[in-house]
């Protein structure tokens, strides 16, 4: 066969250009085509930074807002259970956020821009390391490692599952610069969800900034476009589109620091600072999850007083009832269950669950199986209406109905038994 290798490649599906068309070729003589390195640095407001692994660009900025905080250890431990005492020293904190060539992870995804920030006495210092191409990655990572040695407490937004594992991979790929694992890593994503998603609707950093901090990002770049902007820069040297990427990363770091500040103040004194009911609810849940039952009950109470939308109010009462039950405060718990059971706008599932709790209470603690059976009969009647729905709600209703039915049958047997059975100390649970 006389086909030349070049022709052989021509028909390959695997060589068809990638989905996204390459950016249009840039007119000759345009400033953006091939800038000398120092003018790129100038353009980005950066300076070359050297270390023994090579060179990359470094960008420094200082912001007066947000300023430093003095976190208390107890609040810190609500975010990071078991945090060591020295983790509460903000001088050891390092905020981190990366811009990457993709979200998929794996060893072919690069962090081309690594942004870090820390509080100095008056404000926030931001430093960014930018690799002009892949050969500058090692010096970026080495620089990051040095900063992490100085400030070993890492604060990120979704960094536990994204930024840090990705950087660990990058460090390992060097085979020469070992990663310096953070002494502690506080990821603000989950606390932010608990505190603010109910109000903001999602937990994207820019949305949180707007709705929690009242900041507005002007001309921010869509984060989905960032990888392609970098790829275009690699291929064509187009530096202008990088400027908003660098600003985006700075904003992310500032937003992260400001949210951290806000979260700590909320956790330390939730009822000051004009917190809204959603925030109070969020703090209550965090407290309850970490076993601070007394504080959680008290705060759930204040949350209900502050006034919640109906669905949340039901949830809050449910939480409160569970806490009361754990505290063996049965009068409070039964009162809440009774309220839930009769609540018009509670869902059928929520009402039935309250009924089951009440039935358990009357059967085993109040020793009033007749009352328990009555509640179960009532629940069953309500459920029969509920199962007419379709979808996942119907499936849950069916399961609940089975539980209710089972309980009701047992209660009926128990009620029919000789009276002695009712006063006998033998636990009913053994009958099964």
């Amino acid at each position: 066969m006389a086909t030349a290798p070049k022709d052989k490649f021509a028909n390959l599906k695997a060589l068809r250009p990638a989905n996204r068309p390459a950016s249009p070729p840039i007119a000759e003589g345009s400033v953006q085509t091939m800038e000398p390195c120092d003018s790129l640095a100038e353009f980005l407001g950066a300076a070359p930074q050297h270390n023994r692994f090579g060179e990359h660009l470094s960008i420094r900025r200082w912001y007066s807002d947000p300023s430093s905080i003095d976190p208390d250890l107890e609040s810190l431990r609500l975010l990071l259970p078991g945090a060591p005492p020295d983790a509460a020293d903000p001088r050891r904190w390092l905020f981190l956020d990366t811009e990457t060539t993709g979200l998929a992870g794996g060893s072919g995804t690069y962090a081309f821009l690594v942004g870090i920030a820390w509080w100095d006495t008056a404000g926030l210092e931001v430093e960014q390391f930018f690799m002009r191409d892949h050969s500058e990655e090692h010096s970026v990572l080495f620089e990051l490692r040095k900063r992490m040695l100085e400030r070993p407490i890492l604060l990120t937004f979704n960094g536990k599952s994204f930024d840090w594992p990705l950087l660990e991979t990058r460090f390992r790929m060097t085979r020469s610069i070992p990663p310096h694992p953070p002494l502690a890593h506080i990821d603000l994503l989950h606390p932010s969800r608990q505190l603010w998603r109910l109000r903001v609707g999602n937990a994207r950093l820019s949305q949180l900034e707007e709705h929690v901090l009242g900041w507005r990002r002007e001309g921010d770049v869509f984060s989905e476009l960032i990888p392609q902007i970098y790829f275009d820069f690699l291929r064509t040297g187009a530096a202008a589109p990088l400027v908003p990427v660098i600003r985006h990363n700075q904003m992310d770091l500032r937003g992260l620091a400001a949210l951290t500040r806000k979260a700590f103040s909320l956790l330390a004194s939730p009822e000051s600072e004009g917190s809204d009911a959603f925030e109070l609810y969020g703090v209550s849940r965090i407290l309850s999850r970490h076993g601070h039952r007394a504080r959680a009950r008290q705060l759930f109470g204040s949350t209900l007083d502050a006034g919640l939308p109906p669905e949340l109010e039901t949830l809050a009462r449910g939480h409160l009832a569970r806490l009361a039950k754990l505290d063996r405060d049965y009068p409070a718990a039964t009162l809440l269950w009774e309220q839930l059971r009769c609540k018009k706008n509670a869902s059928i599932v929520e009402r039935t669950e309250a009924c089951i709790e009440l039935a358990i209470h009357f059967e085993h603690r109040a020793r009033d199986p007749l009352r328990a059976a009555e509640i179960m009969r009532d629940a069953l009647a309500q459920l029969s209406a509920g199962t007419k729905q379709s979808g996942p709600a119907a499936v849950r209703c069916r399961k609940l109905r089975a539980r209710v039915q089972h309980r009701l049958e047992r209660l009926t047997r128990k009620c029919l038994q000789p009276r002695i059975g009712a006063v006998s100390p033998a636990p009913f649970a053994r009958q099964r």
Partner: protein
Amino acid sequence: MAQSLAVRTRTSLDVIHEALGEIAARDRTGEVLTAVQRIPAREAQFAAIPSWAAPELAAVYRAKGVSQLYTHQSSAVEHVHAGKNAVVVTPTASGKTLCYNLPVLNAILENADTRALYLFPTKALAQDQLAELHDLATRLNDRFGVFTYDGDTPGDARKAIRERGHIVLTNPDMLHTGILPHHTKWMRLFENLRYIVLDELHTYRGVFGSHLANVLRRLRRIARFYGSDPIFICCSATIANPGELASRLIEDEVEVVDENGAPSAEKVFVFYNPPVVNRNLGIRRSYLNEATRVAKELLSRNLQTIVFANSRLHTEVMLTYLRQAFPSSPGRSEPIRGYRGGYLPGERRDIERGLRDGKIRGVVSTNALEFGIDIGSLDATVLAGYPGSIASTWQRAGRAGRRTGTSCAVMVASSSPLDQFIVQHPEYFFGRSPEHAYVQPDNLEILVNHLKCAAFELPLDPAERFGDVDLPALCERLAQAGFLHKSGGNYHWIQEAYPANAVSLRSVTSDNFVIIDITGNERDESAGPEVIGEVDFASALTTVHPKAIYIHEGQQFHVERLDFAERKVYVKRVNVDYFTDAIRYTQVRVLEIADSHSSSGPSERAHGDVLVRSQVVGFKKIKFFTNENLGAGKLELPENEMHTTAFWLTLRRELVASLPFSVSDRQGGMFGLLHALESIATLLLMCDRRDLGAAIGERPPNPGIEAEWEQVPEAAVDLTESKEFFEPNLYLYDAYPGGIGFSEPLYRAANLLLQRTHELISACPCEKGCPSCVGPVGECHEHAKEAALEILRRLNG
């Protein structure tokens, strides 16, 4: 049967001969048993457990009853101990797992950092090996960790496996998408990787093997990055070229161990050719019915029997028949079960257990049970149709074979030419295996896809080697196409997308259709829709198209709706007396001719790149037992498109015009010739018949030019409606995207192909064509066989 199906009192040659006598009795001529081969029992040949084996390991094996090794085990472990790659070629149940477990465990006991990676072609096989290794681990006080790592591994367990797994059992697909792209997470494994085990090596042929060779290139590249250079231990069923296959896959020298030292009990291997019932039409009795009858004879003599069918449909049809013959007694579990890919895992484990403990007396299976899944050893195997390769046939037959006594295997031939060739030439089968496993690791389509994955995993240095290609040029092309960027001398991946996700090692898309039974909705309010099984993308179009009868565990379901976008099939339970068979149309377009030449006829032969489009356009309803055609339906389903390679034969206008037959008979002759050519091609290439496709189309004026597409039915049915061909191309194409290297050998062997095809058709006893030569004759192609022979005479002339 009156006797209980619980305990067998005697298994001997007598029982088997009695059964065979009964099977053959109906046929007066005695022609049905074309071979009764008695394979004598063989004695074990032993060697001592090597002195270098750790004493505690030797003790564990002794406690398990292994006080000596078989000779093949001994030479395998010695090669590995000496740091050489090895391939062990052994039949079923010859103790092959010891060949890799012993050296690997010994190395782990010597140095607890040692890591090994075991690759099995399927998840199920890895699961099966896990049990044996867990047992060894327990006996060695858990001094090593062993885990399976596949798509089912829960996320929270993965981290522990990466750190603590000394032996990780996985499959090529998971290695490809789950491990290699995340190699930094597997640093401990790769830094200490000393052994790689490739079990069922012979399955890595064709497209799958060509992919695997490239996955192994990537694996070795990552191992080098972490400073390790693992030894490969391979196990293969009997094929003609295990050493060649292994060294093409791992691209290194391999020691071949093929002297089997394991004992085996006596076995009787029988070829059964269903009797001819209509000599005019060459019609034989249905092989499915005959195989069922054979199975009944064996089962009724209380021989635990496995029946292998070549398709899911046939599994279910035979299961239906056998269940009618052996109904379950009230209150007892079903004695006859079905087994195939679409069953859910729990159901499968249950059947495997039932076979081991003997509660299940018979099982009807697809090739799903061909491999090493532990079902114990049965008494008899029935193969309904030739499985397509000699290696598969022996593996399936190996499912029967107790330690003592005699087992038997009966292969019931279908009327397909391949089956007929095999049953009529037993010497071909019982002699030394003629089967070669081919791979084409440098198939550019495959290679370039893996090169992308490799670049994602680790920047590409244009000076490194990746197969036999011009790497700098390819890197440059990938950079131009926007996949790679050169920086600091290396090429780096610059795409967001994750390349491994777009590359399936099995050539077909990896997504499955879920089959949902929605019968319950009407009968019982509380019973919701239930998932009853799965079917892969490729077979979905032919098995679960709308209005198809899908059979699962003997129960028929009518397909109500096929939701293509959601990959869901909604079915309802029915009870009808027919099953459905899909009708597919195939079109071929020549893209590029690699080579061609003219020859007598006048005709031309060529091979090159083609585009194959196929579509399921309808289905037939076929009545149970009688196989009557009850009618057909039309379907509108999406088209499948594939770029592959093909060999083709062009019949020049003069040749076609000179045939002394009507247009319809000429067409019939061409389809008949193609039918026979395809059969002989699979024989010559020793490939599975599914690896080749066949089609006819009008020769396009120029390659690459979009000609009017011909609607060409795959089988020679209803030819009356098809257009007349003036200068047809008869295509035999590789049924895989990119091709797997069959077209060029076929092109080179074209003379032999035509001669053998001529022999096949002219020697066939039928009058006017039958399924064994030119395919079934239609009413209007009375002279199809004649016409085919006439064409061949001109081509061979």
